[in-house]
């Protein structure tokens, strides 16, 4: 019978080598909250599991004057205690913290959430809104990939053999910036997003929006960066009219499916609702970050 | 004479009657008296039915007392019953 091998390297280089050199299917393990379920239900049958959590670089959170760097395997429980990240990108932290239960939070990470490749990953629209970039290490060295370019189709990533996401880099937001992430689930906890919307925006001194990004989840085969959403806000005071335009842009960007979690009609409508509500929270945060 | 109430599903044995009078001292006596009058109904009553005597439901309880002024009402079993295929 096939025998599963487990490795827990302590450097990025060793992890990359193990994954690149693997004979059969190899899987990187971060929090494991998706991978272990897939193993249990025979959705995947890898020959090798490479546990990344013994690699310090993947477990660190750091901030300097210009940017914030979050290790790909940092758990929600740890990130939720990082005052620096919470102050800069509260929406990103909230999005990661929305994934699953307290127990899941003890393990789930940004890297795992992204690399599971689900269009409904909660943290991804928030990372897209934040303009986060992945630091990717592989046999050919290190490269940077914007988060919105990582998932190419459900379960498919723009990563080559042996490549892993090491960390997420987000700019330190300028003054009068705010972000927020909202998702809709049928219950109050424990569900996969039916719709997710992340909004980041920056206001000028006059209160006019100078920068905005809208990320959407669970409404298309991949998480979306919605350029028209940003256009709806930039140059406005984020008034009702602009918010209506944002909602319309969000709904228009949707290309969802009917499934056990929601209908096409429902997702299209609620995407607009959540984009507007998230923008209102982001706006409030931007105004208080004067 | 105790008053007996039958469900409409058993009216086919009685020529349509669902309320009858029977002289008996216990549930088994009621069933026997009805079987004597309407052949075939006894087995239906014993195997497929529960009995309420003056509002209190009895199941598999052939010897519960029936008084002359009692109302004996047969109804489908709620639980623990047998049923013929």
């Amino acid at each position: 019978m096939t025998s599963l091998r487990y490795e827990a390297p302590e450097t990025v280089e060793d992890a990359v080598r193990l994954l690149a050199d693997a004979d059969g299917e190899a899987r990187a393990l971060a929090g494991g909250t998706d991978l272990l379920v897939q193993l249990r239900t025979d959705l995947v049958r890898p020959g090798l599991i490479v546990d990344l959590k013994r690699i310090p670089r993947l477990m660190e959170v750091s901030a300097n004057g210009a940017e914030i760097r979050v290790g790909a395997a940092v758990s929600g429980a740890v990130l939720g205690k990082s005052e620096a990240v919470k102050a800069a990108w509260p929406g990103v932290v909230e999005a990661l913290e929305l994934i699953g239960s307290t127990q899941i939070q003890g393990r789930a990470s940004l890297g795992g959430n992204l690399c599971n490749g689900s269009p409904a990953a909660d943290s991804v629209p928030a990372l897209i809104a934040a303009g986060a970039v992945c630091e990717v290490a592989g046999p050919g060295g290190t490269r940077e990939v914007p988060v919105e370019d990582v998932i190419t189709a459900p379960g498919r990533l723009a990563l080559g053999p042996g490549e892993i996401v090491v960390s997420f880099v987000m700019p330190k937001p300028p003054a009068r910036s705010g972000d927020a992430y909202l998702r809709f689930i049928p219950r109050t906890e424990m569900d996969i997003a039916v719709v997710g919307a992340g909004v980041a925006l920056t206001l000028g001194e006059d209160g006019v929006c100078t920068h905005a990004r809208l990320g959407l989840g669970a409404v298309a085969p991949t998480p979306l960066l919605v350029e028209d959403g940003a256009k709806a806000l930039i140059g406005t005071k984020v008034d009702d009219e602009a918010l209506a335009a944002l909602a319309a842009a969000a709904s228009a960007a949707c290309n969802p499916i009917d499934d056990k979690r929601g209908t096409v009609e429902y997702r299209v409508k609620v995407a607009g609702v959540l984009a507007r509500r998230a923008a209102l929270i982001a706006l409030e945060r931007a105004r208080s970050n004067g | 004479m105790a008053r007996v109430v039958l469900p409409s599903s058993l009216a086919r044995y009685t020529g349509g009657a669902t309320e009858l009078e029977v002289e008996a001292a216990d549930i088994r006596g009621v069933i026997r008296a009805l079987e004597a009058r309407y052949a075939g109904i006894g087995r239906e009553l014993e195997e497929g039915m529960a009995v309420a005597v003056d509002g209190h439901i009895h199941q598999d309880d052939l010897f519960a007392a029936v008084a002359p002024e009692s109302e004996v009402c047969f109804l489908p079993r709620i639980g623990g019953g047998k049923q013929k295929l």
Partner: protein
Amino acid sequence: MAKYHVTASVNGEPVEFLCAAEQTLLDVLRDELELTGTKEGCATGDCGACSVTVDGTLVCACLMLGTEAEGREIGTIEGMADGDTLHPLQRQFLEDAALQCGVCTPGFLVAAKALLEENPEPTETEARYWLAGNLCRCTGYDKIIRAVMTTAAELRGE
């Protein structure tokens, strides 16, 4: 089949075990270490019946490999009482009838203990959200939440 040798600590006691790579920490606790107080309700992280702590962090034992426990400190329901003295949460669960069938109870107790260590003064809403990963089908949660809130107050000396 290759087995991995793992050294860890469970409820403060050193343990060593052999496990296959695909065995979860839950499998190891129940099948190798015979600690069956940690329950399997779903094996997918959705019910919380297998709640344990790993280095003080609340996790589902079904979502962690046994091999990952190397060098870690595991806390299970079996370590909650101190000898023959029940933990205040255990006592209050009995006092408030916060269990019916009891199969979710170990998970709830482990999770509630972690809550009170993290947040000694939770609101009812905070307690409900913290415990949202622990399913109970019998109680409607009412008496569980009451027991947690009462214990929190007791531990604060109120």
